[in-house]
């Protein structure tokens, strides 16, 4: 795997999985509320944004200008 591909994979896949599973692990029995939501719901809602940020970063930094896009002529 080329370096860019590896970094893209870490950003777009590894980080969101670790984020979600880490949250489930840490907050599994917690009854705290955040903005009125049970904390684990809130944590997953937060990842709706964070995942989009991760994917956008992976796109901007590693995927937008890789060899294949040059081939597609865009």
């Amino acid at each position, binding site marked *: 795997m080329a370096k860019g591909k590896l970094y*893209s*994979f870490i950003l*777009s*896949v590894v980080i*969101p*999985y670790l984020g*979600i*599973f880490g949250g*489930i692990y840490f*907050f*599994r*029995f*917690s*009854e705290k*509320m955040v*903005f*009125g*939501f*049970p904390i*684990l*719901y809130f944590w*997953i*809602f937060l*990842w*709706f*944004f964070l*995942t*989009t940020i*991760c*994917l*956008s970063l*992976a*796109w901007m930094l590693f*995927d*937008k200008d890789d*060899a*294949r*896009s040059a*081939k*597609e002529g*865009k």
Partner: protein
Amino acid sequence: MSISIIIFAAIILFTLGIAFYAGKQSNKQSVGDYLVGGRSFSVMILFFLAVGEIYGIGTIIGFPGGVYAGGFSYGIWFLAYIVLSYSFGYFISPLIWRAGHQYNALTAADIFKEHFSSRSLELVVAVVLLMFLVPWAQLQFEGLIVTLNALGYDIPPYIGVVIAGAIAYIYISVSGVRSPALISIFKDIILFAAIVVVGIAVYQKVGGVEPLFLGAKAKGAILKFQNGSEINFAISTIILQSITFYCLPHLITVVFTSKSEKTIQKAQRFMPLYMLMFPFLIATSYYAMIYLPHLSDKPNHTFIVTAIDLLPSWVIGFIAAGAALSGFLLLSVISLAVAGLIVRNIIPNVPERSQRRYSQTSVLIYLVISMIITVALPSLMLNLISTAYGGFSQIVPGIFAIIFFKRATAKGIMAGIVVGIIVVFILYFGKISIYAINPGIIAVIFNIATLIVVSAFTQKEVVNRTPIAHLN
């Protein structure tokens, strides 16, 4: 209730108009145009088609009902698996597109056929996919019956089913996948708005987010995991379903409609934001726990009944139309995936120029059979639906092998799939629970082990296909 029905009908008629408009744009001869839109869809169309497929009527009807009946852990794994599907999809679906492009594939089974030049592997994959795809149509029919009943029309199920089947058939008969794609845009806007409106109505009525959850807690709702088994099931289900997601046969069809790999990645970036409807959708589950305890024998009515409880009739018309359109759209794309598998992979040697006509007929036959089964034997398919993700996931090791592993053989993949399916059925019907881990994951482990061992013993057959990820 009459205003709601008028609005409902007007919206459905309008989408039929969109279908005919889409029909004018399509290439009438080509099966590739019919099944995957000639691989021409742009970022925006792809975005709406994909999110449209993901949020079928099962989400709108099923998710609030599932949380109402199944509680906190259901809500967590459902939300987490979808958001991680997008994350994993960003990585895997461009590679699936590349395989489709490389082999000029229109169905999931086409990739297997071309990569290994193996007719028997193609058949095994197609049969497994069909076995689990067929019952998904039934889910859509049932969701529609729920919606129509909730509108106040206690029509017999067969009428609802015939209407749904007819509309889905009209959508795709004029232009294949192009009309569901266009209608998806319209439907997603209605549905997103409807869910947000219902959610806001709930939060206003109970006085905010915290009172809603505290109120539900006072009625006995539990807002955390209760034990290790729930956590094991949640985590294993999230992993299984998020990785399987873009390998579902009808999602592969959607991936194939894209213009390029880059188009998929671009569309993929914003899909998690579509999930912002869930904080509103989930409000209906907890509202129902507080105010609508009588729903416990039909939890699927949670969303619609909550909406009717809080909002005026004309708004209900929009909401019901959005829900029904989700069902029609998913039904039509599933029909296309089924037709593609039957015409290209099951029936031998249908010439390319006749495939579109054959597909049209297959869609009709498939819809009629599903309608009959839904009405006549409503419980027959339930077991297959419960095992569907476990079943579909047995295709995943094979797809990964095509993309990444040079040494996998057709026999290895076939043996893996057969063993995996057997294990799914044994665990499911034998009610065998291993630390509450999702049976699909356990079956996938058996599947991969079989794949590796059998491939090692059948290395002679290797035709040295380059793994898709290595193509440039």
